């Protein structure tokens, strides 16, 4: 089994129990990068010291797990460009709060991922360093602006990743790449050292292979930061609590476009299948065609 296909939780567990070594895990991650990065254009910068850093923190919460980081987080040790030519070769003089927290929690930055330049886009096509391709099918786009992070997870070039969202930039690429992304409430995660898109909206957040991985990663990056005056001082709950409660009696809504072009496509079938799984797990699943997307909450929220 290739160790880079492990989820964050699986990797942490196996590292803790010494079932696998950091060297083995990082070797498989770097093999995937060597094999596919040129064609998929996911990482803009890589840390050759990543495995050494990982070996130094086996007892931390994230146990030295390999994490991909969107290139708009300032990192002192890795060039940060926000995928903009203007910042080519930029060595940040300080570290973002989120990457500081990530590393303190035992996460190790494998590399920096491609994105829409300055995060202005929703496809990762506008990167000044070329578009990222979707690992599930390179003829398709990964979404964006956190397209590189979503693709890094889908291509098993890391076990989890960090992205940032102003209006869809975590959830949309996660969806296009078939991974999980969480957009935290604004103010929950610090923006200090994140290249700004919309300062009163930007929300850094976790991306991963499972919901549980995202919850674990969010635990390590959330919280008040004196360097970001808009972070909330409310205490941070344990986001992994209640995950085993399931979806029983939860109301799950799906609003879809009823169009002959979409019917029977693999993507459409997968969404229908997901709905069936929710129903089987005890959720109330409600599908409605052709709702008005704009102002959906105002029209249908109650």
């Amino acid at each position: 089994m290739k160790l880079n296909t492990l989820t964050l939780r699986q990797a942490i567990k196996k590292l803790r129990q010494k079932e696998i070594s950091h060297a083995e895990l990082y070797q498989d991650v770097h093999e995937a990068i060597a094999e596919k990065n040129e064609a998929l254009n996911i990482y803009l910068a890589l840390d050759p010291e990543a495995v050494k850093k990982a070996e130094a923190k086996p007892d931390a919460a994230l146990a030295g797990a390999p994490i991909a980081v969107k290139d708009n987080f300032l990192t002192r040790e890795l060039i940060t460009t926000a995928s903009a030519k203007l910042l080519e070769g930029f060595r940040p003089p300080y570290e973002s709060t989120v990457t500081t927290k990530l590393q303190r929690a035992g996460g190790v930055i494998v590399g920096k991922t491609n994105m829409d330049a300055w995060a202005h886009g929703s496809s990762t096509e506008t990167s000044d360093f070329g578009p990222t391709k979707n690992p599930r099918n390179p003829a398709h786009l990964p979404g964006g602006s956190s397209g590189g992070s979503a693709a890094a997870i889908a291509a098993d070039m890391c076990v989890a990743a960090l992205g940032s969202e102003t209006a869809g930039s975590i959830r949309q690429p996660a969806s296009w790449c078939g991974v999980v992304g969480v957009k935290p409430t604004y103010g929950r995660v610090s923006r200090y050292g994140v290249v700004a898109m919309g300062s009163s909206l930007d929300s850094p957040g976790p991306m991963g292979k499972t919901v549980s991985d995202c919850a674990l990663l969010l635990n390590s990056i959330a919280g008040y930061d004196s360097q970001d005056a808009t972070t909330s001082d409310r205490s941070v709950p344990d986001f992994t609590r209640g995950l085993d409660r399931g979806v029983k009696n939860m109301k799950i809504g799906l609003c879809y476009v009823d169009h002959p072009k979409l019917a029977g496509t693999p993507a459409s079938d997968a969404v229908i299948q997901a709905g069936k799984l929710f129903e089987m797990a005890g959720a109330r699943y409600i599908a409605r065609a052709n709702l008005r997307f704009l102002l959906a909450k105002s029209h249908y929220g109650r």
Partner: protein
Amino acid sequence: MKSAAISASDVARIATLAKIPVTTAEEKKLAIGFNATLSVVDKLFSIDTSTVAGTHQVTGLVNVFREDEVDVVHMLSQEEALANASRYYNGFFVVDQIIEQG
């Protein structure tokens, strides 16, 4: 309430202010784009918000202050601040003049 329409000459003026060269064809195209965005704003006006309290932000924070002290930990030296500058002189950034003298 309806937002004002943006004309091609409005686009030309914004482009001049932003120092972005725009062709006549692009002016027309961008005006269409601007107006499409404004039409979304017009749709927002269709919602009855008379009973909804204004929400300016979601954190509930009011008047965030800190002590008026120099934060040495987060301070950059002049050298660190200039380390990535393409041009500097005597410890300062060198930038193009953008305001005419007179």
